[in-house]
């Protein structure tokens, strides 16, 4: 196995040659992603970076208690949407966008979210074909920051994720505020507003070591069958991405006006019951605030936040019956016409969502807020959980995407496919795609109402 040291050798000479580090070519090389486009084109330039993220909650809503009656701006807030009142001007509500099952079975709490994320309902996440649309966007915009994307779950479980490269490659989530802090603001963090910048030779060495790993790629891929080759290739792509990240650490980061390294959060009590709604909300809020600062510090431009699992794992401590069970077993109270307990759970989901949006809006950036330079897509796995209904799965958008999006509207999908949401988000974030989805869910129509 012949080894070529030229690339690594050259890099190291940069630092070995003298006190000052001038790393021309290799760093430029690292700034290029797989497509050959420059990573850091917008960072440090005039326009502020536009970020993208998703927010997921399980068990949907009760349509009559959630869907606004009026369309467009200044839409009314039915009881389950009441919590978003303080952030309504930032949030668009999309109702009536459907998953077309197209003859496939409705796999409860699977069909809806696989369809919304991948453009086709699947029986399991392992059966999905392509990447989820958040990954397509992260591939497009994520290269210029240390983390291509941050996956988070507020439930403490790293397996609670709706972001997949393919069926056997899930992006595991960071499941706690303490761990999120360590990843973002731990030893690898460089304050973009620091007065001086000195490249740390440790980053050069780390990158060089990974280059050595990358050099094994061709020989190894030649030895294995096609499925194994795809798996190993994914591994080597991950290695290359890490090399790129380390190269970024050698450049002086552009200043970020709102970036302030926060204090480390206190670790969660060992006995904390994260399935309890209030405990979950508190944990989620802490993570949302850290995420907002990570975005303000240009540590990532893409994220996925999971507030609860599909079919919601949430409950109230002390109750034998959790939220999801309640959606199926609670009788409709005929005096009011809906499930009272389910309704109260659904309201609390929206309290958490409002807190998330508020955390992004709280950070000043340029003439506006961090949120103004973001697009967030929030959605659930079902609409009316009692029946596992996947027609009219609730979707909300937040942020102006740097001026590309008109926020604060209610848009009706009128039975159009929910893939229009994924397509719109991809196009807004610069993914070169003119249609998206599979079979009956394929669409080439973005949601023009929300595009500025």
């Amino acid at each position, binding site marked *: 196995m012949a080894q070529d040291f030229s690339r690594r050798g050259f890099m190291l000479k940069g630092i070995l040659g003298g006190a000052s580090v001038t790393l021309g070519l290799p760093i430029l090389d690292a700034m290029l992603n797989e497509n050959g486009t420059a990573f850091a084109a917008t960072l440090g330039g005039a326009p502020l970076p536009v970020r993208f993220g998703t927010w997921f909650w399980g068990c949907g809503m009760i349509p009559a208690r959630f869907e606004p009656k009026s369309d467009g701006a200044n839409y009314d807030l039915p009881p389950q949407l009441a919590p978003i009142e303080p952030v309504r001007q930032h949030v668009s509500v999309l109702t009536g966008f459907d998953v077309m099952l197209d003859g496939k079975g409705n796999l409860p709490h699977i069909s809806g979210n696989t369809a919304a994320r991948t453009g086709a309902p699947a029986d399991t996440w392992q059966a999905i074909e392509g990447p989820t649309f958040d990954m397509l966007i992260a591939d497009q915009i994520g290269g210029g920051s240390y983390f291509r994307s941050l996956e988070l779950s507020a439930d403490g479980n790293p397996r609670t994720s709706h972001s997949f490269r393919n069926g056997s490659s899930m992006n595991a989530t960071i499941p706690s505020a303490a761990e999120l802090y360590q990843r973002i603001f731990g030893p690898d963090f460089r304050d973009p507003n620091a007065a001086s910048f000195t490249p740390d*030779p440790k980053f050069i060495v780390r990158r060089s070591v990974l280059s050595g790993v990358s*050099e094994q790629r061709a020989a190894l891929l030649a030895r294995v069958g096609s499925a194994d080759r795809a798996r190993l290739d994914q591994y080597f792509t991950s290695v290359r991405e890490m090399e790129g990240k380390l190269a970024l650490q050698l450049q002086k980061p552009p200043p970020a006006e709102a970036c302030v390294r926060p204090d480390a959060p206190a670790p969660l009590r060992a006995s904390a019951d994260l399935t309890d709604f209030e405990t979950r909300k508190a944990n989620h809020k802490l993570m949302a605030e850290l995420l907002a600062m990570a975005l303000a510090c240009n540590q990532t431009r893409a994220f996925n936040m999971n507030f609860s*699992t599909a079919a919601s*794992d949430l*409950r109230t401590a002390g109750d034998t019956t959790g939220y999801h069970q309640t959606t199926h077993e609670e009788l409709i109270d005929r005096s009011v016409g809906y499930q009272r307990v389910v309704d109260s759970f659904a309201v609390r989901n929206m309290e958490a969502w409002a807190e998330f949006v508020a955390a992004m809006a709280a950070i000043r950036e340029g003439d506006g807020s961090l949120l103004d330079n973001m697009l967030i897509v929030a959605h659930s796995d079902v609409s009316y959980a009692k029946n596992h209904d996947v027609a009219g799965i609730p979707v909300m958008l937040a942020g102006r995407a740097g001026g590309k999006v008109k926020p604060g509207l209610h848009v009706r999908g009128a039975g159009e496919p929910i893939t229009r949401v994924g397509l719109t988000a991809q196009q807004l974030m610069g993914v070169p795609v003119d249609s998206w989805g599979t079979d009956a869910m394929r669409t080439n129509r973005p949601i023009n109402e929300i595009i500025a």
Partner: protein
Amino acid sequence: MKGTFTMKTGRGIAILLAAAATVPLVLAGADRPSIAAVPASHADEASTVRRITEPQYRRAITDIFGADIKVVGRFEPDLRVDGLLAVGTSAVSITSGGLEQYETIARNIAEQVVAPDHRASLIGCTPAAADPAGSACAGQVFDRLGLRMLRRPLAPAERAALVATTLESARALGDFHAGLAAALTGLLTSPDFLFRIDRPGAPEQGRRMVDGWSKASRLSFFLWNAPPDEMLLAAAAKGELDRPEARARLVATMIASPRFADGVRAFFSDFLHLDDIDLLAKDARIYPAFSSAVAADAREQTLRTITDLLVDRQGDYRDLFTTRRIAMNRTLGPLYDVPVAERGWTFHQFPDGDPRAGLFTQISFLAQHSHPGRTSPTLRGKAIQEILLCETIPAPPANVNFAVVQDVDNPTLKTTRARLQAHLDDEECASCHKLTDPMGLALEKFDGAGQFRTTEHGEAIDTTGSFADTHFDGAAALGRLFQRNPQPIDCLVQSTWRYAMGRRLAAFDKPVVARLNADFAGTGYRMVDLIRAIALSPQFYEYEPASPPARMAGWPALATKGAM
């Protein structure tokens, strides 16, 4: 529920979602990735690349560097495919988030290895006066570590690359040991460490075989759940693993080793999904006796009970369903209502006639397949069907009216059985609930934390049912029926084979699995003999078996345990 190769296919994707009375909350994990199938394209060829699991990684570090070296960090989650994490190892890769974690973990390990307090024992040399850069020392280090870490000798170019990385990094960082740590990090992040990548070797009797080094790995990971030790590597170097009679001697030595129990524990931990206990949460107000310490000890209890029966006493696998001898400690004693005088682990013998007997009455099983605040006969029954019988339970229909069956305060339907019975009046529900509920209901005298009870809402609990056309009453009686039934045996044999091979069953596996089944019966169902028989099978060492493993109709194609 017939023979070995006539498993029910059902609808293939076996995620019982909101099925029954008690299932819904678990749906919590409905989209957990540890569920089911990989795309068909991944199933159509025999993989030669398996990612090492977190326990295997940790074991490798301990074996090579000693228990002082701590492995700190979060690993990319393993993936359960066809009910086994071992099968998932040939489906997963490493994501960019995962690689970042592996690199961080690796740097931390490498820094500890070269730290002043470890370097004398773990590095063992320093740059000599004649070789101030330390080239010779680095070469010695990687000759030794490379073999252990990559489980084969380094190629000359690989050795040269590691030495060069060491020297270049040492110059950049101004410290020889920092340079060594950098190269070591590279080794720990390399594909040949993080994955087990088969290499072809010389054929045996017309069969394409993996090479001796890969054989050593297959044996070691299967029997010990650890990378090959120096004895095995030495045997591989001498070509002993290519000779069946020498292989048999090595297998005997390995089974006699205390490390064999680790391998058996690893299999049962995977087979019984005991890793899931880490995420088990119970409502502290409803089950105040339950805690995360109880959960961890409940898993340890089951594993100790199993190794006592199957390894130390070389027992009959079937007795696992009836054994009254159970590992016990002071944490678990109160939940079993058993006084424990000793500190640490001991063995407790339940008397004849006690409701506790066998695996189904252990907390690891009972609590894991329940909801946070109540039992779930459906989840328990489903776990028995899918894990221990290798059956597949289809998903429930989407639009089910659960109102009656799940109203726990229903004044007329006080027990879970009564509420579930309502399900059986609905034909669509009944088809699956007939498979899951009767066995789950047999365990209803154990609550959601696994504690014994006799009543629910003041009503006596009925634990009668029938299995394989035989009437029974209670968990212990169900265990006795399992002990006499062939299906749990068939399921164990094919699961052990899939675990050993790290892939799905394929058509060409049929003869070897049939033979293993027959041999297992012939040796009195001793687990040790089953494992030995697999380790001695030439098929165990085959490289990319001749015909591709097309999915066979009638086989359990996809998931076993669902996300609940």
